[in-house]
């Protein structure tokens, strides 16, 4: 009765094997590495860059243990920190000829030294939370109502243009909060305006509200469109943050959406919060200025003559100098959107900019006065400006809709609009949570967590072995397997391990032993009541199972509640807690039974089992 069919043993072996494989990466530790990433938003890493890095390392006589390219960065792993530093120097010399204008960021990093065969199985170590590795954590709240207000602002401009084009004579368009209000003198005009707006902007919900003699239309974004708008705002903010954080040269920043309107930013290893916040919170990295078309400036542009007073010299993408005036006409704050598009007649790729009301007004005035001249859109990164584009103004541009065209491929238009978008935040953000953890504190926390688990584990194992003898040993092995599986599952999920997570691990082990105690006590009880050893084992496991299931489910309910409603560190705790309960069901019941069956089940004439003193009443 106490025998497992072969498939059950096979299952146990397979699970154990998987457990070992996925737990292994956590033991390899980290080895020094050099990471090369793009230092400019205009520069993308590609395979030729990888080859170049390889060549540089080869010529410096350095042999990285591994070199990888993940789309955003190239990482080369070394065995010693000495090699790592040499490699960093070599790469810096080769890739960054001019230290003032670094096109690449070469940073020191630590990479998991998991061997290739494990990595190819997608086995990777758990990610350590900030409280264990040190760094800064920000939680930012995006002001969504501001994003919607911004949208309404640009819509009111669009509606104005639309009504003018259609020849509908309204008596005023204004933005009231997130609603655009259109006034009309008579019902006919109101009706015509309503139809025109509804046709042109299907995202808008237009309602007519008669107020006295006037007819008023209120246009609001439909809920679906509003939530789309918010989503887009959040995405843009995240990509803007990405660009800004690139400046910090952080090895592995985490920038994630949390909930509907929050962004988590974690910068491991960064200690200077003030600088980090300064960079994150910066607005307007985009500026629109006029190009100086005077002969002196033209001369300076060609390279003969100094830059005239009141002008500045910037380079464009092709490293051609452009002399622009110092006066800033518009900043990225006035830019609500930038999208790639096509010219309606020539089918040429274009970049379409949308400006807010203030921006549109300024832009109209500027373009009216400067037809035939060039205006430069400059993106600032690390305090250095680069001219993204310097188009010629063909005519006065009103309404805040700007189309930049000419000599672009569709790909360039897409890149350019992305760049322009990243120059500004779609909606303002506010830091609502911030944490800095020093690197020594992180290391201490790891040691503390490790000691908590290991000492507790040891005492339990010693006690179980003394109290339940063979069954105690089996329980202890099961507990060890539980820990193994727990770590394996967490590694598979690539969960972030935090100190509360380690506490949950300790607690999970402390609770998991409950199942084994229940079983062992039950077996003892059966023996006490005079059952034969084999029957006692069978009945013990059988009867304990119902209780184990009930008690684990109630604990799981608490864990799930924490998972659903908890935030931050509580979530980390809850994940480990829940997984711990599930793995304990496998290890404490299924696996330990397997061991017992292997040890006792095969013996036909079993006289007694070693489960400690069974006191006979």
């Amino acid at each position, binding site marked *: 009765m106490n025998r497992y069919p072969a498939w059950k043993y096979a299952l146990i072996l397979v699970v154990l094997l998987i457990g070992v494989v996925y737990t292994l990466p956590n033991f390899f530790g980290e080895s020094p590495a050099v990471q090369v990433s793009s230092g400019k938003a205009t520069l993308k890493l590609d395979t030729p860059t990888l080859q170049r890095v390889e060549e540089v390392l080869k010529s410096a006589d350095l042999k990285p243990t591994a070199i990888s390219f993940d789309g955003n960065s190239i990482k080369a792993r070394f065995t010693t920190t000495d090699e790592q530093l040499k490699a960093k120097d070599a790469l810096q010399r080769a890739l960054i000829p001019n230290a003032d204008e670094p096109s690449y960021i070469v940073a020191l990093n630590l990479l998991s030294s998991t061997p290739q065969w494990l990595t190819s199985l997608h086995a990777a170590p758990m990610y350590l939370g900030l409280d264990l590795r040190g760094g800064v954590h920000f939680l930012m*709240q995006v002001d969504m109502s501001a994003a919607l207000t911004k949208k309404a602002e640009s819509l009111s401009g669009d509606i104005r243009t639309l009504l003018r084009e259609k020849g509908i004579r309204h008596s005023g368009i204004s933005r009231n909060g997130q609603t655009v209000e259109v006034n009309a003198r008579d019902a006919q005009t109101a009706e015509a305006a309503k139809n025109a707006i509804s046709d042109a902007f299907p995202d808008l919900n237009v309602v007519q509200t008669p107020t006295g003699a006037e007819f008023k239309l209120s246009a609001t974004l439909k809920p679906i469109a509003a939530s789309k708008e918010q989503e887009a705002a959040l995405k843009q903010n995240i990509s803007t943050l990405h660009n800004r954080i690139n400046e910090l040269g952080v090895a592995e920043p985490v920038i994630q959406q949390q909930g509907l309107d929050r962004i988590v930013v974690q910068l491991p290893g960064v200690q200077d*919060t003030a600088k980090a916040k300064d960079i994150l919170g910066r607005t307007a990295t985009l500026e629109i200025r006029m190009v100086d078309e005077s002969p002196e400036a033209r001369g300076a542009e060609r390279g003969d003559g100094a830059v005239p007073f009141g002008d500045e010299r910037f380079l464009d993408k092709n490293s051609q100098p452009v002399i622009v005036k110092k006066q800033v006409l518009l900043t990225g704050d006035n830019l609500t959107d930038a999208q790639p598009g096509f010219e309606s007649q020539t089918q040429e790729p274009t970049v379409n900019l949308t400006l807010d009301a203030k921006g549109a007004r300024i832009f109209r005035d500027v373009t009216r006065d400067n037809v035939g001249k060039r205006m430069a859109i400059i993106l600032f990164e690390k305090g250095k400006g680069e001219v993204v584009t310097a188009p010629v103004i063909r005519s006065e541009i009103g309404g805040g809709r700007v189309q930049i065209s000419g000599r672009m491929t569709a790909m360039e238009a897409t890149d350019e609009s992305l760049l322009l978008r990243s120059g500004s935040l779609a909606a303002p953000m506010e830091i609502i949570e911030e*944490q800095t953890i020093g690197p020594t504190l992180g290391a201490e926390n790891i040691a503390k*967590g490790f000691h908590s688990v290991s000492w507790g584990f040891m005492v*339990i194992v010693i006690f179980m072995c003394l109290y339940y003898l063979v069954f105690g040993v089996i329980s202890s092995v099961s507990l060890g397997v539980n820990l193994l599986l727990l770590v394996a599952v967490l590694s598979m999920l690539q969960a972030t391990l935090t100190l509360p997570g380690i*506490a949950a691990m300790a*607690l999970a082990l402390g609770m998991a032993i*409950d199942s084994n105690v229940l079983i062992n006590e039950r077996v003892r009880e059966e023996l006490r009541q005079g059952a034969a050893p084999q029957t006692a084992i069978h009945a013990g496991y059988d009867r304990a199972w119902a209780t184990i299931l009930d008690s684990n489910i109630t604990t799981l309910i608490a864990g799930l509640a924490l998972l659903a409603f908890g935030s931050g560190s509580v979530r980390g705790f809850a994940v480990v807690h829940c997984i711990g309960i599930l793995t304990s069901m496998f290890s404490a019941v299924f696996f330990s039974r397997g061991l017992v069956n292997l040890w006792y089940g095969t013996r036909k004439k079993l006289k007694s089992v070693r489960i400690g003193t069974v006191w006979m009443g």
Partner: protein
Amino acid sequence: MEFFKIKKDIPFMRHALAFNVVSLVTFLLAVFFLFSRGLHLSVEFTGGTVMHVTYSQPVEIEGVRNAVTALGYNDVQVQNFGTARDLTIRLPVVKGVSTAQQSDKVIAALNALPDAAQNPVTLRSTEFVGPQVGDELVEGGLKALGFVVLGIMVYLAFRFEWKFAVAAIVANLHDVVIILGFFAFFQWEFSLAVLAAVLAVLGYSVNESVVIFDRIRENFRRLRKLNTVQVIDNAITSTISRTIITHGCTQVMVLSMLLFGGETLHYFALALTIGICFGIYSSVFVAAAIAMWLGIKREDLIKGPKRDIDPNDPNSGAVV
């Protein structure tokens, strides 16, 4: 080895009234302290800034407090954090001042103290929480508590019977209130981790009650001669050794956290310790007693087989 040699069932239920009175008194005391003293909520709930700083030599708290208060903060708390060299400085939320400025200012002020040259200060960690986050945490915490209570009650009502569900929840909520009472009385810091511990304890000690209820159900089936009180006594007696050993093991782990886990896990482990101790008490003495007062009967749990042999049913034994 065998710790528990119990010859006869211990008549726990004879003293049920006394136990319940003890519970009630502790419970009321806990509620009293919760209201009179309130919880010492951590910065996660209240919003504000917490800085951990380390000195190279032991430092006078008073001097640090004065230096920080001189910056114009009304409600500054400075406490030792583990050792005499480590300090925790808590600052309230100030509108319009960013945290980076706050912590920079504080560190600058501390470095400006006359003895700063011999005893330099370093910033170990800062934590800032905006006021809006705190409200959400309270809301989330209450929701989680509600979910746990409801979830466990539904499950127990489904697996056992509503009387057991009520008994288990009452008994274990009383644990929760008592833990909170301890935190209120000693003014220990109630952080997010402690909240997690409290909810984990709720799940854990219900699990304890479930083990006893399971045994009660089984006894109702097997030991048909015994009355309800005897059934409960027998159930508690026969599970007591498992109860003590399990809780002992869990407590060993928690103790290990308390000893080695450092300040961060200190209150977490403390909440668990209280929870485990009162968990045993409430499951053994309170939950079963409440179930008894609610009038659990054999018929409540074993409806199916009972109906088959109902002697009053004229159709008994008839099968279609």
